[in-house]
């Protein structure tokens, strides 16, 4: 029974990774950029949730929506200010800019409010349900349901709306999409907005679940979410969800075996194994290189 307990914990953690990984994978799919600043958007989301709940006394759902909205704006601003000029630059220049933006946000936040961690206010009722002898806290249940709802909304946007169609078209071939009259710049900004909103939501969820946040909290979950995105096949939306869940479960299992200090290494070992044996990811197709 304890194993099912661990599995539930793993899925809760994995759904947070999956929410962050979705932003990575959508941005990578559309402009082929690893948005290193994504983990920092996640951190900002957690802080906005913290101030909204602790400072203004909002409840969980309004705080979540507020964090998502502000993060969406921040994501668009980052894209407009830093990445837009780099559309035609080398990949290395884009990657370094992304790292620079990420550091700028981290240390900007430290500069403004200091590096001390904060304890997240308790907003969710903490009850435990017993289902088939397994204790499941209401928190992890709520986290899971919020994540699933967000992912369903995302699927709806990408597959059923006009903007989603434009996003898929731009990620398939930006030039052809432009010729078909799609506003490519706006589509890219929209992608950043959605991805950042999901990261912001993940930040609030992370805060309520783990109850401790600090300005450098985005680095490790950001990297791991990237691992999840690569695991599922970068650029593929269902892949990011599955990758996130797998990674969460693997990490929890490694901790459960008593190797909790090796938890972070497990994620990177998975990354390297995937990159070496199937770089296109679990759901990806192999592409042939043309000269």
């Amino acid at each position, binding site marked *: 029974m304890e194993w099912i307990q661990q599995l539930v914990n793993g899925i809760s953690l994995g759904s947070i990774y999956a929410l962050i990984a979705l932003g990575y994978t959508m941005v990578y799919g559309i402009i*082929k950029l*690893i948005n290193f600043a994504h983990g920092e958007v996640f951190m900002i989301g957690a802080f906005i949730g913290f101030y909204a709940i602790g400072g203004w006394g909002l409840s969980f759902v309004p705080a979540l929506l507020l964090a998502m909205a502000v993060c969406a704006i921040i994501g668009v601003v980052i894209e407009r200010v*830093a990445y837009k*000029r*780099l559309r035609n*630059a*080398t*990949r*290395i*220049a884009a*990657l*370094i*800019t992304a*790292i*620079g*933006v*990420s*550091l*700028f946000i*981290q*240390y*900007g936040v*430290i*500069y403004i409010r200091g*590096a001390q961690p904060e304890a997240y206010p308790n907003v969710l009722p903490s009850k435990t349900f017993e289902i088939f002898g397994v204790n499941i806290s209401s928190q992890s249940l709520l986290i899971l349901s919020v994540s699933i709802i967000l992912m369903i909304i995302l699927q709806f946007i990408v597959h059923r709306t006009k903007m989603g169609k434009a996003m898929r078209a731009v990620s398939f071939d930006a030039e052809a999409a432009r010729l078909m009259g799609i506003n490519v710049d706006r589509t890219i900004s929209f992608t950043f907005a959605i991805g950042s909103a999901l990261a912001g939501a993940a930040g609030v969820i992370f805060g309520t679940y783990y109850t401790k946040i600090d300005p450098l909290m985005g*680095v490790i979950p950001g*990297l791991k979410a*990237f*691992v999840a995105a*690569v695991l599922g096949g970068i650029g593929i939306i269902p892949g990011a969800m599955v990758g996130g869940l797998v990674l969460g479960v693997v990490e929890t299992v490694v901790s459960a075996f008593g190797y909790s*200090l*090796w938890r*972070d*290494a497990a994620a*990177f*070992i998975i*990354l*390297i194994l995937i*990159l*070496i044996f199937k*770089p296109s990811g679990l759901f990806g197709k192999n592409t042939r*290189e043309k*000269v």
Partner: protein
Amino acid sequence: MKKAKGFWLSIILSLVVYGVVQFLINSGSLNPFYANTLIFIAINIILAVSLHLVIGITGQFSIGHAGFLAVGAYISAICTMKLEFPFIAALIVGGVVAAVAGLMVGIPSLRLKGDYLAIATLGFAEIIRIVFLNIDYVGGAAGMQVSHLTDWTYAFICLLITILVIVNFTNSRHGRACIAIRENEIAADAMGINTTYYKVAAFALGSFFAGIAGGLYAHNFYIIQPTNFGFLKSFDILIFVVLGGLGSLSGAVISAILLTIVSTFLQDYPETRMIIYSLVLVIVMLYRPQGLMGTKEITDYFGKWTNAKGGNSYGK
């Protein structure tokens, strides 16, 4: 002839610089703070130049250089503190083990390109750090006590050897092969260059010198901890190379000197330092993506010594 003349000229120049600094340290007119800054500059130049070989010359985007620095630092510290080796032997052992680590990381990951390679090297560096974090023999998270052995002479000799080897490597047949890989890997392959061999060789050589720098680094402080070798350290090294210009050795040297001086003066304001760093990085990438020097060397501006990219640009 001209080439050899430039070479000896630069060796003599650098030895003069060395002698002057050593004299100033011995006579006490250079206070220990500045002497230590000079040693730190030398270590950073070694790191910058070793990463320059991987990124600037071979074009393989590695952002996990701190991992090899950590290997060199820990191995050489074990050699001096636990096995009681002399310092020089410890440095060499640290470098060799780091080169072996470079081979182990490079052979699987150099099949990847661009972003994926960057992430894989980042992952390997994190794994190396976590491994040291979990080994109790080297103190785990608390770190390891190391005695202070690095002085200006050691730092300078290592710096001189690093720059000589990397300049000569770059100007040799192997270096040209690496540059060909940087320019276009598929075309280089088609011209009969064994791309995997050269990529791995450059990577291992870069790791070797990072390991040497690690040995100097470990013995310049009194303690080493796994947190010293995280992603930020890799990033610090990367910024030297990128800011100086990808493909320019003297650019890497100049930016290592400048940034080390700047960060020494901003030591008391770490947040401000990181904000300035990251802003500089983003602005340089947006407005001058080729870096300060591009692929030019400082000697190119003098015309006369075009081929002698020797040792006249360090120790400033």
